[in-house]
């Protein structure tokens, strides 16, 4: 197909009309007859043994349905990777906000008081709150050594590089937790009857994760569990794993009461109890030549996983693979570990480990540049990955990617050189300092390594009686445009109108398991499957003689109607098959980590006001190569939205922890950017051609989360000539650092961590 009609056009969002008219049905908009409301009684301590539970007086307890761990029909765990997380704590708690009991009542106003009157006595156990405390092993809170997972990536001969180095550059970088802060809080409704089993409707990303978790928890066969996604008001990874917990709770209450049960979290509960982005620490030690070439390096990447395994091994994996950035490392050793602490488990959030390790990499590049005496631009130029070279996992870059060209274009679009010069002159005077910073990065699309092969996703496309075609996938829509783009792909593939293609609600009773909606995989992986399933429909129609080889959309509709009238509706399936030449070794963590990478260069311009110590971003140029852009409006929306979250991550959003509990779990004290806080965000796409996804598309959703933090902090360093190696960076952090710097008088060039040989 040479010119596309529908792919590449900004068609209206499939569910857009319902959204702009207020008709879209989210979980809290749904009510069932005879429904109860559920609430969760949670741990107030980070770690301890439950000694006694007292139900307070003044409450008509006989009106309540009460569920404890004893009521669980199956296994008391939320199945995911390792089955260590209980659905309800049984005798011991390992983090604040851990669920202990469930209550349900017909009047939702009766619940808060009842929850408050339940008092739980604990025998406290010593708790661990940081990566450092966890690795000290003074207190073992998980497994043998507090370690959920480790990875070791080795390439070349790292031990041999140090003596050849002209410089050895060291640095340590940290990132904080971040709340996803979807505007729709989590929620579920469950029903149970012995005939049909458990059905749950909810706000969620991964219907089949929940399906599997409920089978184990409720001890039910696959056909007695049904999970239906309602319209979902934002997710960003935050509704990947925790919804299994809430679905489990609603299901347990429904089983015990025999009535429908609705659980809707309020903002405080959602922020305090559900997952956040993993806090991280990255250490770099890099051997560099006088000319600024990286000879090799050691990278140590550690994340704080919270109290249970959940998704930490996978987040760690992505962070590990991205730790080397878009650079060529002839020799490298990456050691990564996910550590246990007594905080609620940290989890999936757009970027999934990569924003953390890429922040470190891109800050470290600045440090290398300073040590070698090159500009931030030149140091990157000299180390960019080239086609034919290999990544840290020894994946050969086969795409014709040209990172220097990408960098040059970004510099031009942002007027980098002129601004850089002007700022350094202007900054000599006044209390407001300007700076400009660059970040170059990559983001792998799809599951890591053998992930896609293990998932073995299936999709269906159905020919309907009215002559239209329907897509059936478990991929969910939560704002990104899943429904729209998959329908575009099918319409384009079959030569139909966009309106001739519809998509089924993500309901495990009806759609096959096309895998979770995560990892920027939907368009690239599921899109490609949907394309081949659609071709199956065409083939059936043409081989039966119902349809000519070349046809109009109207002729297709008629052929489809006639065929279905004669033979009934039919479906065409496609299942993922890994290309045979893709090699991945899970043991050595080596090989083709991702089917494709998206590439980007972002340039941020900031002003730091030295009277308020606040940073404002004045301009952000975001240039990326994401393969073919299937829907320009949606693609731009993904990039801008991700950047806004990235700016929040960098400059606004600080989770304040006390004994493992988030203290600022409200929108009034956890601050996300408003429309008045954001700079002009200028988005540009470069198409360099990639053959992986449907119509050449690669993943796009997570990429924009990686760039803002390093480009902004690099710009802040440019403005102040003072180094900042941790985010979030709030005015008080700048104040404190400047106060200490002015005492020690050490600028970035003289700071420690550098050895000359």
């Amino acid at each position: 197909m040479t010119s596309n009609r529908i792919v590449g056009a900004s068609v209206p969002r499939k569910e857009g009309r319902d959204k702009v008219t207020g008709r879209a049905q989210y979980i809290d908009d749904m009510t069932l007859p005879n429904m109860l409301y559920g609430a969760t009684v949670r741990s107030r301590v980070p770690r301890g043994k439950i000694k006694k539970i007292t139900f307070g007086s003044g409450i008509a307890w006989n009106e309540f349905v009460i569920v404890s761990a004893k009521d669980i029909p199956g296994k008391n765990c939320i199945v995911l990777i390792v089955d260590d997380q209980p659905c309800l704590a049984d005798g011991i708690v390992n983090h604040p906000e851990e669920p202990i009991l469930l209550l349900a009542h017909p009047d939702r106003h009766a619940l808060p008081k009842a929850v408050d009157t339940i008092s739980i006595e604990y025998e406290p156990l010593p708790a661990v709150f940081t990566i450092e405390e966890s690795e000290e092993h003074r207190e073992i809170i998980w497994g043998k050594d507090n370690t959920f997972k480790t990875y070791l990536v080795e390439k070349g001969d790292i031990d041999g590089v140090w003596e050849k180095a002209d410089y050895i550059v060291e640095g340590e970088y940290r990132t904080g937790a971040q709340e996803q802060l979807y505007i729709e809080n989590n929620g579920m409704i469950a029903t149970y009857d012995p005939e049909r089993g458990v059905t749950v409707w909810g706000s969620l990303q991964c219907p089949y994760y929940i399906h599997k978790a409920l089978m184990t928890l409720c001890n039910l066969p696959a056909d007695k569990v049904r999970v239906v996604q309602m319209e979902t008001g934002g997710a960003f990874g935050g509704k990947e794993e925790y919804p299994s917990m809430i679905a489990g709770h609603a299901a347990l209450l429904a089983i015990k009461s025999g009535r429908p049960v609705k659980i809707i979290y309020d903002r405080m509960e959602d922020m305090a109890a559900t997952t956040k982005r993993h806090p991280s620490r990255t250490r770099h030690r890099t051997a560099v030549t006088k000319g600024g070439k990286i000879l090799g390096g050691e990278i140590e990447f550690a994340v704080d996983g919270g109290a249970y395994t959940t998704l930490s091994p996978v987040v760690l994996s992505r962070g590990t693979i991205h730790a080397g950035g878009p650079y060529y490392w002839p020799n490298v050793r990456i050691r990564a570990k996910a550590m246990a602490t007594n905080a609620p488990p940290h989890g999936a959030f757009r970027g999934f480990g990569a924003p953390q390790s890429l922040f470190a990499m891109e800050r470290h590049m600045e440090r290398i540049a300073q040590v070698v005496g090159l500009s931030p631009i030149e140091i990157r130029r000299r180390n960019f990955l080239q086609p034919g070279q290999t990544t840290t996992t020894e994946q050969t870059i086969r795409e014709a990617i040209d990172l220097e060209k990408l960098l040059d274009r970004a510099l031009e679009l942002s007027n980098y050189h002129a601004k850089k010069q002007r700022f350094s002159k202007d900054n000599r005077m006044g209390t407001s300092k300007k700076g400009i910073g660059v970040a170059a990065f990559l983001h792998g699309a799809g599951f890591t390594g053998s992930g896609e092969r293990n998932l073995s996703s299936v999709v269906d496309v159905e020919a309907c009686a009215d002559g239209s075609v329907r897509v059936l996938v478990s991929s969910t829509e939560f704002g990104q445009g899943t429904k729209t783009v998959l329908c575009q792909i099918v319409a384009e593939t079959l030569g139909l109108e966009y309106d001739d293609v519809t998509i089924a609600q993500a309901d495990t009773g009806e759609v096959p398991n096309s895998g979770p909606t995560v990892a920027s995989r939907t368009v690239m992986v599921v899109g490609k499957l949907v394309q081949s399933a659609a071709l199956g429909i065409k083939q059936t129609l043409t081989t039966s003689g119902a349809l000519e080889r070349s046809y109009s959309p109207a002729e297709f509709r008629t052929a489809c109607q006639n065929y279905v009238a004669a033979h009934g509706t039919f479906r065409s399936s496609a299942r993922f098959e890994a290309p045979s030449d893709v090699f991945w070794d899970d043991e050595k963590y080596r090989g083709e980590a991702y089917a494709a990478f998206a590439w980007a260069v972002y340039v941020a311009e900031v002003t730091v006001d030295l009277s308020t110590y606040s940073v404002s971003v004045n301009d952000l140029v975001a240039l990326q190569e994401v393969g073919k852009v299937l829907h320009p409006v949606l693609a731009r929306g993904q990039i801008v939205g991700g950047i806004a979250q990235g700016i929040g991550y960098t400059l606004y959003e600080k989770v304040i922890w006390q004994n493992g509990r988030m203290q600022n779990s409200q929108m009034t004290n956890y601050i996300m950017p408003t429309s008045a806080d954001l700079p002009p965000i200028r988005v540009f796409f470069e198409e360099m051609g990639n053959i992986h996804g449907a119509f050449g598309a690669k993943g796009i959703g997570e990429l924009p989360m990686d760039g803002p933090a390093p480009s902004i902090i690099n710009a802040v360093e440019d403005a102040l000539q003072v180094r900042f190696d941790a985010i979030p960076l709030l005015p008080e952090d700048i104040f404190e650092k400047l106060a200490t710097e002015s005492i020690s008088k050490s600028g970035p060039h003289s700071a420690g961590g550098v050895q000359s040989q």
Partner: protein
Amino acid sequence: MTTNISSGGRAKCELSFTVNGERRTVRVHPMERLLDVLRQELALTGAKEGCAEGECGSCSVLMDGALVNSCLVPILQAKSANIVTIEGLAAGAQLNCLQEAFLDFGGAQCGICTPGMILAASHLLQRNPQPTIGDIREGLSGNLCRCTGYVQIFDAVAKAVQFKART
């Protein structure tokens, strides 16, 4: 929970107001939030609860022409008021120009902030039919959106202004 106002067992009162041009009468506790009355008594679920503390604006409705956070309005205050919710904006199947523009220019992603955002934009255009981008940024800054980064919402509002000027 989102509110410490309990309706359990307390006296209810009857009061009337106009919603989307229709006169409605409800029997509820006088401190019940307007948001709950709209959503639960009147089945108008377009207004959403994002925070229950006046921060996010996803519960925005128009009350006597003013933009209010319905999570902060006790129903007693809405007595005899004229209320417009997102459900009252389209004329039948015909979308209002803001709705049309949000649909075409990417103003709605997950859609949860959209009803409040469109009402806030409509309120802005009532006061200021020719807003600059700066006016739009300011005018919508009481409504949080986590998906869009706002840029395409500004685009949509600006397009709606142009669209209105043409018709």
